[in-house]
């Protein structure tokens, strides 16, 4: 395998991993845009989404069709979970100092992880996630596995749908309005609480999809599986410019590619350190993130 093929191969691996980060980063960035909260429990929704997929697929077996069913069950359930989290944990704190909600998010994250650990149906031990039999296509001397194609197709498809919702539907426009100026949105007659719920629902559904994709690529599920992807997706969101939706997508892809390139060419142990080092450099040069805008103080 020549150097060119190797680079191409790592790029493909990186784009596939990056699209999972991007899906997850979208949830961070949308929630931050609307309620100015870093929802640290977001990674754990990925875990729960993956577990729901696990239960569905072990029950009915894995075929491309049942995989779709797994998505269709896991995404709405996680959307519901996200909405309840907001209603129960974050909404009462909306007028409290921001640090309170942040601490609550961290607490909620621990609650979900350890709650999953003690649930008999889940438990502390890793389980093998049911996957489709591996198929690899070869193109230009580069391997492209079926699961990578699925990941990329699902992620891009969901991002296109999200893009449509945000730019062209009434509720999507309201999301942008609320994220710009909540007070003025009230004065338009917008039910801001409903817009916030909808945002949590969207973000959580994307996290659920990311969970199934992540578990298909690294076929194992366990209660702490959401921590690392969650952290990286958060970083991807900051990298792209927190609050910016195209930024979250871009940040996810950049982080995924940087991580796999570092793994492939430099050192697999140092991959995370290198990826995060890159992040530090970008943030030193552009503190608001790649597509983030430094917000002018309103007078």
């Amino acid at each position, binding site marked *: 395998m020549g150097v060119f093929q190797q680079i191409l191969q790592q790029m493909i691996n990186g784009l596939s991993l990056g699209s999972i980060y991007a899906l997850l980063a979208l949830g961070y960035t949308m929630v931050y845009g609307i309620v100015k909260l870093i929802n640290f429990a977001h990674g754990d929704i990925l875990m729960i989404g993956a577990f729901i997929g696990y239960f569905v697929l072990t029950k009915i077996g894995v075929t491309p069709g049942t995989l779709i069913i797994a998505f269709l069950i896991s995404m709405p359930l996680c959307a519901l979970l996200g909405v309840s989290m907001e209603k129960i944990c974050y909404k009462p704190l909306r007028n409290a100092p921001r640090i309170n909600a942040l601490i609550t998010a961290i607490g909620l994250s621990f609650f979900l992880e350890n709650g999953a650990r003690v649930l008999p149906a889940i438990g502390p031990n890793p389980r093998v996630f049911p996957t489709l039999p591996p198929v690899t296509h070869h193109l230009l001397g580069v391997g492209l596995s079926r699961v990578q194609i699925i990941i990329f197709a699902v992620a891009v498809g969901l991002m296109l749908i999200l893009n449509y919702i945000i730019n062209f539907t*009434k509720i999507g426009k309201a999301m942008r*309005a609320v994220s*710009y100026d909540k007070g003025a949105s*009230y004065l*338009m007659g917008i039910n*801001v609480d409903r817009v916030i719920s909808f945002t949590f629902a969207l973000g959580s559904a994307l996290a659920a999809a990311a969970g199934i994709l992540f578990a298909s690529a690294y076929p194992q599920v366990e209660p702490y599986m959401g921590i690392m992807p969650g952290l990286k997706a958060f970083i991807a969101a900051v990298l792209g410019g927190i609050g910016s939706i195209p930024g979250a997508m871009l940040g996810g892809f950049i982080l995924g590619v940087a991580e796999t390139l570092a793994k492939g060419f430099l050192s697999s142990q140092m991959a995370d350190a290198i990826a995060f080092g890159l992040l530090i450099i970008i943030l030193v040069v552009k503190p608001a993130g790649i597509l983030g805008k430094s917000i002018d103080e309103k007078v």
Partner: protein
Amino acid sequence: MLKVEKLDVYYGNIRALKEVSFEVNEGEIVTLIGANGAGKTTTLHAISGLVPISAGTVEFCGTDLQTLSPHKIVQLGLGHVPEGRRIFANLTVMENLEMGAYMRKDHAQLKKDYEQIFTRFPRLKERAKQIAGTLSGGEQQMLAIARSLMSKPKLILMDEPSMGLAPLLVKEIFAIIEEIKAAGTTILLVEQNAHLALSIADRAYVLETGRVVLQGEAKELANSEEVRKAYLGG
């Protein structure tokens, strides 16, 4: 139409409004004038439900507004053009208008209303697809007013519509306000430019450090010695 009685609002321990009472009747332009910090904006925020009321009542068309959430108050037909315009600078002009019409479900009539708004504000029609943040100050103020009109309000609260605008534009905005009145919408206008406000208002209330200190016909107040000294520069 709007009846505010003994309204008290606190910011923490600070009593921002002290037993403020006033009334707006259908078809009128009523103005609240007063210096910076007199409580004009706070009064409007309390009516719209953006700040909690500590004591007193606000009644709009027979409905007590105190327990309603702000979006419900808009649905009753109470529009609010906030201080500093607060347009959605990240949305297009058209999308801003759509947000103004957010709670409306009468799609057929809505289409006609967009047409009507664009006839009244031709500049907004030209710029319908433009990001609202790129508009000039005067255009932004027009957008803020147009956006509020999209909710078909019976009463519009207008907070400092002249703020930060060149004199010529201020004239234009005030002409629009008079047009809105002529079209049958009642207006409660808050202004620092007391002279201008009194020139188009029917009645006025003067606020000073959270209290109503004077009230009456706008013409009378414009000629009163006290008001002239304090707010009209002699």
